[in-house]
Every structure is written in structure tokens, then in C-alpha cells.
């Protein structure tokens, strides 16, 4: 169980940092600033943490959730910049926090954000319509190679995680796709079910409903090992039966989106320790495990040095793709 291992690692990291931690506690309502609109994946992430914190009695202070999803989430990070040093604000995002400044000119930079923790990794899969001619990911790639630009990939927004992954597939395999950006995963899902695009790379949670009904099916998952066992979802197959993309001949070992929590830079170190501990309690709760199962995400708990390392790696590999595609704004 990677989850347990990471949790354990994190626990030791916290224990080592314990002497520095004094009694900081929030003195007023805490603001959860969500870098997505209401109802999005990031919003559910933040609201689940909010509910868990209060229900499990981890934090007694009241928590106020603010949605600032404008500009692909940049609005939330700009808000963090404007509230430098405020220890009563937590920002909830994905890897957009550190990737956005690379593709668009942003007034904020990573200097303005202090990473607190990452609590989950969302998987990406290649999905095609149920009646599509491709049986495996390799078939699919071959079809795209045979007629460059004829296979369309729908995705959520442009120069964001979805398009980055599609570009990464292109760069790794030499296939050429046509990428069509839509406004969100749900919209893309319907476009695929209606046959208006040929494939998408939605997260498990976004695609589950369509898979259950047999409208679409997965080809492979971009994770180092197969996903956890689950009840059969359609046609006797569950999450664990989906091959990894590497198994099926697409040489991308891992492409996952972390669900991250940040603080405005310059906030009290003790406050950060307080939140890290609180979030770790959340990550260990049953309610959190239930959320991960429901949304088919992989549980992790990254904080401190581990988190910085993860961010650096994730950022470097994404920026390579950006550079190859000529997206970098600087």
C-alpha cells in the first residue's frame, strides 16, 4: 500500500519537525480559496476537506469556502499574492499553481505561494467511444499515425493538463492528433459519448457514468501500476482490469495530477505546521478514504521536502512539454 507508506513517511517527517512546532491555532474563521468554479473537481476536494475537518473535530473554527476559478484558477493564486502572510487562508488547487505562470503571463510567481500538502493524485486514462475500432492503446496510436491529424482528442481547456498530456503522447509516440479544447471534463465527456470527438483523457470520476452505461471504454491508465481493485463497472471489468499505458505500448510511465493545498507566502511557519498536521489527520480519516474510493483517486500525503521535490519533478517534466510545443510565455 503506497498510501500507507507515504503516510508513514510523512508522519516521520512531521515528527522530526515537531520541536519547531509551537502552539499556533487559528484565531478567526479560516478561508478556503478554491482555484476552480463551484462544482469542479478542485471544489469537491476543498469541500470534502472542509466537511471532514469540522465533522471529525480536527479544527473547531468555522471554515468559509470562496470560489476563485477565473483564469484557469489564476484568480485564486493572485488572491494569495495580495494576502501575503495571511495565516487564515488556504488555497486549493492542482498543479495549475506552478504550471500557469509558464504558459501565460501572470502577475504572481511561485515566490508568492507556500506549498502545504498534496492529498491525492488524480489519474488520467485514454477513453474512446464503446464502438470505436481500437481495441488497445497501440491500435489507437497506430490509427493516428496512419492518418495524421484525423483522430480528434477532446480535452478540458487549452495548455492545461489535458492538452499537455495529449502533446506528451504525441512527443513520445510520434502520432499526431487534433486537439479540441472544451470548457470542462463533463462537457468533453458528452462530446465523446455523442461521437463528436474520438477520444479524451478524463479523470476516472469524470468518465465513470459514461463507462457504466457502456457509452465509452478505457484503453489505458497513465500510472506506474494498475489502479486499485474495484467492483466490476461495465461488462465485468473494473478499474484494476485497465492496463497501464506503459503495458500497452505507450511509453509514459506516469502522468497524474496532484490535488494540492497552499498558503500565501510569508505566513507563520507554525501556522503551516498546524495546517500540515490538520490535513494529515484528514488524510488518515475514514471519510477521506471514502472520498478517494468514490472518486477513484490515489491517496498520498506529501508535505515538506517530499512535496517540494514532487513539485520540482512535476514542473520540470511539464515545462519540457511546454518548451517542445512552444507554449512557454517567457
Amino acid at each position: 500500500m503506497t498510501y500507507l507508506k507515504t503516510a508513514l513517511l510523512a508522519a516521520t517527517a512531521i515528527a522530526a519537525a515537531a520541536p519547531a512546532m509551537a502552539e499556533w491555532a487559528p484565531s478567526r474563521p479560516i478561508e478556503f480559496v478554491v482555484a476552480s468554479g463551484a462544482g469542479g473537481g478542485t471544489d469537491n476536494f476543498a469541500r470534502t476537506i472542509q466537511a471532514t475537518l469540522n465533522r471529525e473535530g480536527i479544527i473547531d473554527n468555522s471554515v468559509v469556502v470562496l470560489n476563485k476559478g477565473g483564469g484557469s484558477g489564476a484568480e485564486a493564486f493572485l488572491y494569495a499574492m495580495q494576502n501575503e502572510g495571511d495565516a487564515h487562508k488556504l488555497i486549493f488547487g492542482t498543479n495549475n499553481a506552478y504550471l500557469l505562470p509558464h504558459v501565460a503571463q501572470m502577475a504572481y510567481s511561485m515566490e508568492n505561494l507556500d506549498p502545504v500538502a498534496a492529498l491525492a493524485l488524480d489519474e488520467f486514462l485514454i477513453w474512446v467511444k464503446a464502438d470505436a475500432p481500437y481495441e488497445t492503446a497501440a491500435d489507437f496510436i497506430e490509427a493516428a499515425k496512419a492518418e495524421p491529424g484525423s483522430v480528434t482528442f477532446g480535452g478540458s481547456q487549452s495548455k492545461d493538463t489535458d492538452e499537455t498530456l495529449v502533446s506528451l503522447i504525441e512527443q513520445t509516440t510520434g502520432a499526431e492528433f487534433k486537439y479540441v479544447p472544451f470548457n470542462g471534463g463533463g462537457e468533453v465527456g458528452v462530446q465523446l459519448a455523442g461521437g463528436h470527438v474520438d477520444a479524451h483523457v478524463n479523470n476516472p470520476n469524470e468518465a465513470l457514468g459514461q463507462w457504466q452505461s457502456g457509452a465509452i471504454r478505457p484503453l489505458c491508465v497513465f500510472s506506474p501500476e494498475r489502479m486499485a481493485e474495484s467492483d466490476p463497472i461495465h461488462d465485468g471489468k473494473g478499474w484494476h482490469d485497465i492496463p497501464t499505458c506503459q503495458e500497452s505500448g505507450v511509453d509514459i510511465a506516469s502522468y497524474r495530477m496532484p490535488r494540492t493545498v497552499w498558503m500565501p507566502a510569508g505566513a507563520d511557519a507554525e501556522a503551516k505546521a498546524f495546517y500540515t498536521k490538520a490535513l494529515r489527520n484528514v488524510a488518515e480519516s475514514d471519510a477521506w478514504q471514502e472520498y478517494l474510493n468514490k472518486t477513484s483517486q490515489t491517496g498520498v500525503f506529501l508535505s515538506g521536502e517530499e512535496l517540494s521535490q514532487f513539485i520540482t519533478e512535476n514542473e520540470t517534466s511539464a515545462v519540457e512539454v511546454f518548451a517542445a510545443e512552444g507554449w512557454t510565455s517567457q
Partner: protein
Amino acid sequence: MTVRRFHAEIGTALATGAVGATAAIGAVGLGYGWEERGPQPGYFPFYVGLILIAASIWNMVSAFAAHRQATAHAEATGETEEPFLEREHLDRIGRFIGAMIVFVIATLFLGIYVGSTGYIAYSAWRQGKYRPISALAMGAGFAVSLYVIFEVIFKIPLLKGPIEPLLGIY
């Protein structure tokens, strides 16, 4: 001073034309051409901006035409051209907008609660001719009901200034 409709028409046409020009200039920097994969990001703003400029010029020309006709009519009949705002109206509007601007600035520095208390109390006192104390009560009552509806019931934080924390409200 009386503002004539003609002046207002010209001013508005100039302003809308300027909006169009700003957009078109901003769009040039984004690329306004047509690529292989459809329009560039500046395509729509650029052409829509041009249309806006053209429509504004049209409106300005027709305002001039209407003005010439009205002046000719005024000379012929001795009536003056239709005024846009009488002095009295201008005064009233000016005072109302002035109070509103002061309210916005006060809100930026002192928060919405203090700003709206002051604004409502001032209006009730000066325009409504209420006694200062009852005017103040109205303002404060309004601010309290805002607080109850937004912060207590719906948990939406409103803009606060330096005074609320002193009262223990965050």
C-alpha cells in the same frame, strides 16, 4: 449650466468609439489573423472593435445632422434645442453620484459595514431630514442585517476595514 442632448450624443459616441479602438489595438497584439486551425485569439475582438468604431462614427454623424436640423428649427421658430439635463437635474444627479463615489472610497478603506452605515445615515439625515440619531440607527441597523444575512446565515465574508477586528469580528 445645461447639458444639451447633442453634447451627450457626441460624448457617448466618442467614448464608445474609444472602447472600440482600445479593443482593436489590444487585439492586434494577440494576432488577428486566421490560422490553419481557425481564428487567432485577437480575431473577434479586432473586427468587433472595428465595427464598434464604425457604428460610433455613424452615431456621431447622425447626431451632427440632428443638431443642424434642430438649430435650423430653433432659428425658425425661436425655440431652443431640447436640453439633455437641466441645471436642476444635473445638480441632483451630481450630488447622488458624488455621495455614491464617497461611499465606494469609504468602503475601500473602512469596509462595507462602516461605509454603508455612514452612507445611509448621511442620506437619511441630509435628504430624508431625519434626526441624526435616528439616521445613524437606520444605517447601523442596515449594516447589522447585512452581517446577519451574509456572514452568519450564508457564511459569505464581506469587505471589512480596520474597525471590525477591534470589535472581534473577522
